[in-house]
């Protein structure tokens, strides 16, 4: 008999008791967003891969301190983002690596959203270049908020900053980007 998939809170409870099978489920559920979060911060695939791995190892060790009922995703991403930031800091020069725009639509072969259809290749290139010129702290907020689709609260938790700081950094970033987008 095949059992019903376990809900996330139950997986977390089991993982906290040392159940690696339950933790495996959590890793599979979040490895994609964890890797992309690490990548937009570290700007290097190998560093991002390692930051995601180390993040999941540290999260496993810290599970005992995870507060029951709290959202798991931002808690995990905070650990991963911290690993990625450390690598970016120690690598120094790697932080300047640019994200590459895909030649065609969204990755994964999905149909482009109405927003994507409205953005020409030239606009995409110009906007990406403008994002790259933002100060690091604003660029991180923009990448997590808009590229990865995290909520404002999740961005705050992931970057370990108050939500008000997310708002102000977002506002400043948009102000700068508007100059090159308009």
């Amino acid at each position, binding site marked *: 008999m095949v059992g019903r998939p376990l809900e996330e809170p139950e997986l977390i409870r089991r993982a906290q008791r040392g159940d690696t099978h339950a933790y495996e489920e959590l890793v599979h559920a979040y490895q994609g967003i964890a890797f992309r979060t690490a990548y937009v911060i570290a700007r290097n695939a190998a560093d991002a891969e390692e930051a995601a791995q180390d993040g999941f190892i540290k999260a496993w060790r810290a599970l005992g301190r995870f507060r029951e009922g709290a959202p798991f995703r931002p808690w995990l991403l905070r650990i991963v983002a911290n690993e990625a930031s450390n690598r970016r800091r120690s690598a120094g020069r790697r932080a300047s690596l640019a994200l590459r725009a895909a030649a065609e639509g969204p990755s994964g072969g999905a149909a482009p959203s109405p927003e994507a259809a409205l953005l020409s290749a030239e606009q995409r290139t110009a906007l*990406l270049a403008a994002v790259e010129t933002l100060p690091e702290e604003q660029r991180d907020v923009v990448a997590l908020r808009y590229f990865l689709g995290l909520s404002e609260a999740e961005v705050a938790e992931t970057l370990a900053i108050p939500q008000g700081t997310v708002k102000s950094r977002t506002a400043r970033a948009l102000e700068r980007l508007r100059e090159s987008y308009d």
Partner: protein
Amino acid sequence: MTELERALVALGEGLEYPGAPDVWAQVEPRLRRRRFWPAVVVAAAVLAVGIAFAVPPARSAILKFFHIGSVSVEQVQTLPPAQTRPFSTGLGPKRPQPTVQLPARLTATAYYARPGLHAALLRYRGKQVLYAELRGDQMGFAKKFVGPTTHIEEARLGEFGMFLSGAPHVLMWEQGNVQTRLAGNVLIWLDRGVTYRLEGDLDKRQMLALAGQITR
């Protein structure tokens, strides 16, 4: 949401991310290893101390022991058995994309990455040189056994550096089982939590010049 914000969302959809790795495949063995190694390390330490005190000649067998970041160096009277193997031994398959950042004037012939270690094979002054970066909590990631005739000297680089030259030494690491190979001249240094390592047939001055180009 403003038009600019919608454009940013659209930009995010069009970004090309590197292929997401199978994280669990890398994490799972490390979870198992962390449960396994403490017991092994304690047992080995107890055994080593026991031998050192029980057998008088063994007291002088270990001459020096020290760490640089992730690498420990042990000077011993007799080297453990090892043979010459390619630089790439234990580094895993070649990676299609750069795993370390190098200045444009340096040419890498191959890149490698495995958890805790990023590396590149370089051509420098016509010789093959292995460059490696070891990151994270990798205490004891690799161990060097150095014979009495291997020269060890300090190198002024990063927070602390060391240059090993002369007679080959034995590099030992754990990868499923214990692996060894003979290593030649090596420059190791620690800087901002990262352990750097250069290995190749270069003298100290040449190694320092190369290190300066890479980590400047």
